[in-house]
């Protein structure tokens, strides 16, 4: 299977993640959507690294980039969930539509 196959999978994952962020009425879903988006990007990175012209020996920049994405995703997830907890304690809800204190 060639590069494009992996990219297609990545694109689909990305779109699903996007829809999840945009459509579900729960902050937790938003977070999960974000994770999907990040993973889609990771898949692309790793795939590009694999199908690098000239082979991947000694050139792991794509993978290392992916590792950094995972690291950041971990940090982000931790903070985001902390925020969700905070929001919950403040607003008694985690439906993004109801949290519009910034509107005015």
């Amino acid at each position: 299977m060639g590069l494009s196959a992996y990219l297609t999978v990545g694109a689909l994952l990305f779109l699903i993640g996007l829809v999840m962020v945009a459509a579900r009425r729960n902050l937790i879903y938003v977070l999960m959507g974000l994770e999907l988006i990040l993973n889609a990007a990771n898949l692309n990175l790793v795939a590009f690294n694999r199908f690098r012209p000239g082979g991947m020996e000694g050139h792991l920049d794509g993978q290392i980039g992916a590792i950094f994405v995972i690291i950041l995703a971990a940090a982000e997830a931790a903070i985001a969930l902390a925020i969700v907890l905070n929001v919950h304690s403040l607003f008694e809800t985690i439906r993004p539509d109801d949290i519009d204190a910034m509107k005015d």
Partner: protein
Amino acid sequence: MLALALQHGAEAAGHAAVAGASAAEVFGPSTAAWLLAVPLLPLAAWVLQVCFGRFLPRQGDWLPTGALAAAAVIAIWHFVKVLSVGDPDFALAEAIDLPRWKFFFSDPGLTEGLAGFTAGILYDNVSAAILAMVALVSFLIHLFSTGYMQGDSRYNLFFSNLALFSFAMLALVISDNLLFFFVFWEIMGLCSYLLIGHLAADKEKPKMSAAWASMKAFMTTRIGDICLFIGMMMMFQAFGTLSFSELYQAVESHVAGNGGEWSPWLTGAGVMMFLGAVGKSAQFPLHVWLPDAMEGPTPVSAMIHAATMVSAGVYLTARLYLMLSPTAQLIVAIVGGFTAIFAATIGITQYDIKKVLAWSTISQLGYMICAIGAGGVAAGLFHLLTHAFFKACLFLGSGSVIHGCHHEQDMRQMGGLRKKMPLTYLSMLVSTLAISGVPLFAGYYSKDTIIAKTLERSMAEGSLVWSLPFYLLVAAAAITAFYMFRLIFMTFHGKPRAHCSEHAHESPWNMTLPLLVLGAFAVLGGKVWLLDPLHAVSGGQEPWFLRLVHDPHQFVDHAGAHHAHVTAMSASLAAAAAGILFACLFYLWKRLDPARVAAAFGGVYRLVYDKYRFDELYLATAVRGTMILSAFAAWVDKTFVDGVVNNVGRVMRGLGDASAATDLHVVDGAVNFVGEATVAAGQTVRRFQTGRIQQYAYFTFAGAVVLAAVVLFRVI
């Protein structure tokens, strides 16, 4: 006068070289330092007095007085040296090297425009005489003030301002260029402002009228000053220099290069500069400030009227003479002559002793200005000198009277002071005789010469308008004699008419001594000059000053001059006699009743008594006009942005907001519109700010789509 050397050409140049040799022997290399010390001593006294005056014993009044005494000694000492040279063409700058001050840039390489300007010392016969006079009179006024100002709440500041005043005048006299002249001229304006307004800041009972008077004095003279400045700019632009001697040369060669014709702009420049003198010397139509300046303490009046401020105007006119075209000279002469008689008529009607003297000063200054306009530069300056002595004497005398009468200034309340204040009476009488032009007194010689000069000029010109000054001055001479003797009779003769004059007392020595010294000069200053060590100057037919200073132009030959002199002498003698006679009839012998005469004239009398209502006229036009205009400008600024901003504001409002708000606030309209537009745009954009992050996600995605479209389809 330096100008002479230029006028007389090569012959005079040789003459000056001979004279210069002897002058170089008389004046050593330290002369410049001595001369600079004359103004700088009062300046130093001023600085010390301002900083430490209140901590010194007697509030430091001895400091400026002492400085002025030293300055007077130096100035007189050098004047004596000048007399010993006795050369009418004497100019110190030609005799010895004098330091020059490169004022704006110290780099000698820069000479473009004002960068090339240098200032130096001008010390010739005229400035020597006037410097000595100013220093001496200023010293005497300081001395007088130590008595008169006792008990004033701002005693120390009074003396410091007085010292600064003296400094400015002394420095002005020895300035060799228009710019420095202007600088000291303006500093005098400041001093007059501070001193006339002295009582306005009084700690016990501030006098608001003094505040108005000081502001009026400053603003009125400043109108003249600005004209002087404009004239100065015109000269500088045309000739690239501001030094008097270089300007004389430049003007002369310009006129010569123009075929002897004076360009109209040169006339204009001359008149503009003369307007400066009109302001400072209180000539018509800028005379209104001087009578009000009487709000200041009496020594200040003496200072302004005799030694400093107003003399500066005459001195300026004399220095300008060689830059004045014949037309400008005529204007000068007419202004002076008109002022002389105009002010004299007002003097008849006033009752305030100081106001009478003030109008008399304006009138006498008119004489000087008129003389200079008519070509009698020496005569005008001579009168300036003699007038300084007797007018200072009169003012200080009036101060002494006021002091003796417990600050009563109305002559109707006085009378019979002759016995109670004999020294004051004596000195004032002598000065009155001098100002009236009674023979053998100083004023006679100078006034006589002035009238002769105007007659000479009218003979030479032969036109009707040039004969006006002569008649005006003769008439003014009669009126002068009348109102001055009216003053003497009302004040010192008869019986005391009020409580204050019954209890009058003679003033202490430090007030009477200056009076006596000045009175002595009023007697001796004309023909005899006891202080003159050389008989060459004091002897001879002519008064000493006319032998020392010559007129730049002679308009008639010797016989004509003699004829003019005899005519003028008889006319002025007759005028003076008539004036004194009528004064006696009215006020001494009481054969005529002034009240009935006044009633007979009715409206005219009231018009003159109200000073021809010029104050009211100016108040209604210039002052009120300015106030209305400025209020209007402020209103315009608040409600309209003129020109560009106005239109920009309209356009923007038209675009953004169809419902035009009120026509007011258009100025801020433009600005506020920007604000409103921002708010309106914000209100629109605000709809997108739902606070719902998921919508934001859609927007983000939409943006990404647009961006991708741009990139992929190469929209741009």
